């Protein structure tokens, strides 16, 4: 068991340390870092879905006043490593998807760069493209593993036999849409190549992973790449892995050495090259006894990847651990299409997967005539059905009970379409939430005593998650020092290596590294250190993972109101109750949870990237047509958490909270809409046309 910290600063709710900079707009994001005389880069994109570039005429672009360089596959620098086709920017004349970056203009101003990019004339030998995901394709394939390194399939017992023998069954198909992360800050970079050092002010979830990946692609020593990112204007997974835009910015900078080059993808370009969540087709089967006990669970998923690079979302993996049943099967099959590369988006796997499973559970409850909260309680388990290990802590039932009480669930008439107020059909729904506790293998922190203050340095990221503030709380408690006496420095490869901000692993991983460093510091220098005393230490593997399965759990409760005339859906009330270990910062944690829930509401009601199969691109590629929730869509959101004590996860007792808020939220909305209207919407988003009439 890890030695737990004594919580002093941890658990309180200090305001964000970067608050003043953010409300005044003076926190510098990647594009905004002050540099002398910057140049500007604008990408050129393919306008065919597949084919070969036969000619590129750059003469008109080069003839413009103020153009410094035009990069094309004809003459762009040859990259040292092209193993990752997504990052092999301008290395081939083959077009793999519509919107692929096939050139760039660099100019004195952004206006001229964009005009020059428009003037690059490209001719193609066009080939037919194929961008349509379907579960009836004959070329679906089984990936070797799915994201996170999980096995592609799982199989225990005999699901078909369970189905045949079951008293009650649900067999349905659920689909989630293609989603784009759409952080408000586009993918942006300011790049400069000078004196053998490439400096990237890049909007990223991890400066060290970017340094490593860029160095590999360009054939540089990691020391020759300096990446800086103190602030990120949202990411949601889309800035977790190096993408083509950053490589292009580096290439542009190397084309005009000594000059800083700024590159910001347009919102439209983000829909093509900045990642997205695959659409999913989920076949879910539940078999149960009359008392609600599950005897079989099957979750078979079809989703897409890009022909040039595989990304297999682990959609069915969380189903393996959520409920007990003797017969269980999950599988993932992929269609490789002529599309951009899908990637991480907030809770990859859990988020889409729990839509299928948790709507199916609601359907089962309805079949059984059983309360959907009770059905979940009946199928709770102390042992992770997938690994066979006990959970380090599992408080799903407590979340459901606490939530039901807080939400007023007891008053609910279970009959669908049973409550009408004026012209509105009113319903409520529930869904479970689950998210694993991840700890990344590598992260190192430095703790130094300097000028009467403690300074903790680590190359971590703050995506709006609050790292600037919460790491300071952890450092303070680990040092036994006042919060005010601790300074944290992050977001720069000058600081020790830190893992990517992904998998809700930041606090567990970086926090543990900071704790290690702080403890080593105290062990070495005691309570009265001298100026300049410094220690570096790294996160250790957690031996408790051999003995325990580690997850956070939660329960969503939603009220939906549907206009009886028009089918318009409004959600005046959401409640999420979570059991996620020790909450480091109460104020910021609440924001994380409600942010996830709000994005789940957005997924439920609004979001869908419409792929036009005739052209091969997402046609609603802007924020006017790709709807994310606006302020008026959001009603009252109540967030609660249990005071959960888990001594196994890490020294803080924390589980990670960035993603669990979105998991299950869309299912709860769909279940509430069904309760309101009697219409079961199995295809997201729940738009009014699906409820009309």
């Amino acid at each position: 068991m890890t030695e737990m910290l004594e919580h002093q600063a941890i658990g309180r709710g200090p305001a964000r340390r970067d608050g003043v900079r953010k409300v005044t707009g003076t926190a510098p994001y990647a594009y905004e870092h002050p540099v002398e005389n910057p140049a500007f880069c604008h990408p050129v994109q393919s306008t065919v879905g597949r084919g070969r570039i036969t000619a590129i005429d750059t003469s008109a672009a080069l003839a413009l006043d103020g153009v410094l360089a035009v990069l094309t596959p004809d003459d762009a620098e040859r990259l040292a490593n092209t193993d990752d086709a997504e990052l092999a920017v301008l290395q081939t004349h083959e077009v793999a998807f519509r919107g692929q970056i096939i050139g760039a203009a660099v100019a004195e101003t952004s206006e001229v760069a964009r005009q020059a990019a428009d003037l690059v004339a490209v001719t193609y030998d066009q080939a037919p493209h194929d961008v349509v995901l379907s579960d009836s394709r004959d070329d679906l394939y089984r990936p070797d593993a799915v994201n996170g390194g999980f096995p592609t399939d799982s199989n225990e017992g005999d699901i078909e036999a369970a189905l045949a023998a079951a008293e009650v069954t649900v067999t349905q198909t659920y689909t989630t849409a293609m989603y784009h992360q759409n952080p408000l800050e586009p993918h942006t970079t300011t790049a400069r190549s000078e004196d053998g050092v490439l400096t990237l002010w890049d909007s990223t979830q991890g400066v060290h992973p970017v340094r490593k990946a860029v160095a590999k692609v360009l054939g540089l020593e990691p020391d020759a790449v300096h990446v800086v990112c103190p602030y990120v204007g949202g990411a949601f997974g889309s800035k977790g892995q190096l993408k083509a835009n950053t490589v292009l910015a580096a290439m542009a900078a190397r084309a005009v050495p000594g000059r800083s080059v700024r590159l910001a993808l347009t919102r439209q370009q983000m829909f093509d090259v900045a990642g997205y969540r695959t659409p999913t087709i989920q076949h879910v089967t539940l078999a149960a006894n009359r008392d609600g006990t599950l005897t079989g669970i099957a979750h078979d998923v079809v989703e897409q990847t890009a022909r040039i690079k595989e990304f297999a979302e682990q959609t069915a993996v969380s189903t393996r651990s959520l409920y007990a049943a003797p017969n269980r099967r999950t599988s993932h099959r992929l269609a490789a299409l002529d599309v951009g590369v899908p990637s991480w988006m907030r809770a990859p796997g859990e988020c889409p997967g729990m839509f299928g499973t948790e709507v199916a559970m609601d359907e089962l409850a309805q079949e059984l005539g059983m309360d959907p909260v009770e059905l979940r309680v009946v199928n709770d388990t102390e042992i992770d059905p997938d690994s066979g290990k006990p959970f380090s802590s599992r408080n799903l039932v407590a979340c459901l009970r606490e939530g039901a009480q807080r939400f007023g669930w007891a008053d609910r008439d279970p009959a669908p379409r049973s409550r009408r107020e004026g012209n509105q059909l009113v319903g409520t729904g529930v869904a479970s939430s689950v998210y694993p506790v991840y700890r990344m293998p590598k992260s190192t922190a430095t703790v130094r005593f300097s000028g009467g203050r403690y300074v903790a340095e680590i190359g971590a990221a703050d995506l709006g998650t609050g790292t600037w503030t919460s790491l300071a709380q952890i450092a303070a408690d680990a040092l036994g020092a006042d919060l005010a006496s601790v300074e944290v420095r992050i977001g720069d490869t000058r600081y020790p290596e830190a893992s990517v901000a992904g998998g809700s692993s930041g606090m567990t991983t970086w926090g543990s590294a900071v704790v290690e460093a702080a403890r080593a510091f105290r062990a070495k220098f005691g309570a009265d250190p001298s100026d300049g005393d410094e220690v570096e230490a790294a996160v250790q593997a957690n031996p408790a993972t051999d003995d325990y399965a580690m997850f956070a759990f939660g329960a969503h409760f939603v009220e939906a109101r549907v206009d009886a005339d028009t089918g318009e859906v409004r959600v005046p009330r959401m409640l999420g109750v979570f059991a996620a270990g020790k909450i480091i910062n109460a104020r910021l944690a609440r924001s994380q949870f409600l942010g996830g829930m709000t994005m789940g509401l957005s997924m439920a009601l609004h979001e869908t990237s419409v792929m036009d199969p005739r052209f091969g691109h997402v046609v609603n590629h802007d924020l006017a047509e790709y709807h994310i929730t606006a302020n008026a869509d959001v009603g009252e959101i109540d967030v609660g958490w249990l005071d959960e004590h888990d001594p196994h996860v890490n020294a803080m007792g924390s589980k990670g909270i960035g993603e669990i808020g979105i998991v299950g939220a869309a299912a709860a909305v769909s279940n509430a809409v069904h309760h309101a209207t009697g219409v079961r919407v199995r295809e997201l988003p729940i738009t009014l046309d699906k409820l009309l009439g």
Partner: protein
Amino acid sequence: METELTLRIDGQDHHLTIDTRTTLLDALRERIGNTSAKKGCDHGQCGACTVLTDGRRTLSCLTLAVTQGGAEITTAEGLGQDGGLHPVQQAFIDHDAFQCGYCTPGQVCSAVGMLAEYADGWPSAVTEPGTTAELDHDEIAERMSGNLCRCGAYANIVPAVQAAAPRREGTNAGGAR
């Protein structure tokens, strides 16, 4: 084509020779070095570039700089007085009404402009016709809907704006929904 003009930003004059194509947003961010207003969509679809033009909230991404000679432009950087924060900014910090912070300067400017509109008696789409609106949850949410927040801080933005609203006699504008 280039033209000369003077932009007045946060109380300071800036003399520029500028491309007629340059938007006010790009003039701020790429010429003047004021990056308070953010570029989220560049097409009037997110509100991150919101500034105050002669006191009214507007979108700097759809405003050509060349049309703005003589206008008084205020960004979130210039809202506070005597080096302090504007009450709306302080309320945003207190209510944790942001996460990544990228939409925040636009939200703040929009809130300041919106409160002035409300004080002038302007209605919104959810105001019951023929009545004067109370600044409740629904009124604030509707009036602030031109500012998208992908982090999903709306549930904190509304109470922050409510808290920063000037109190009126006999109302409960500061109360929670």
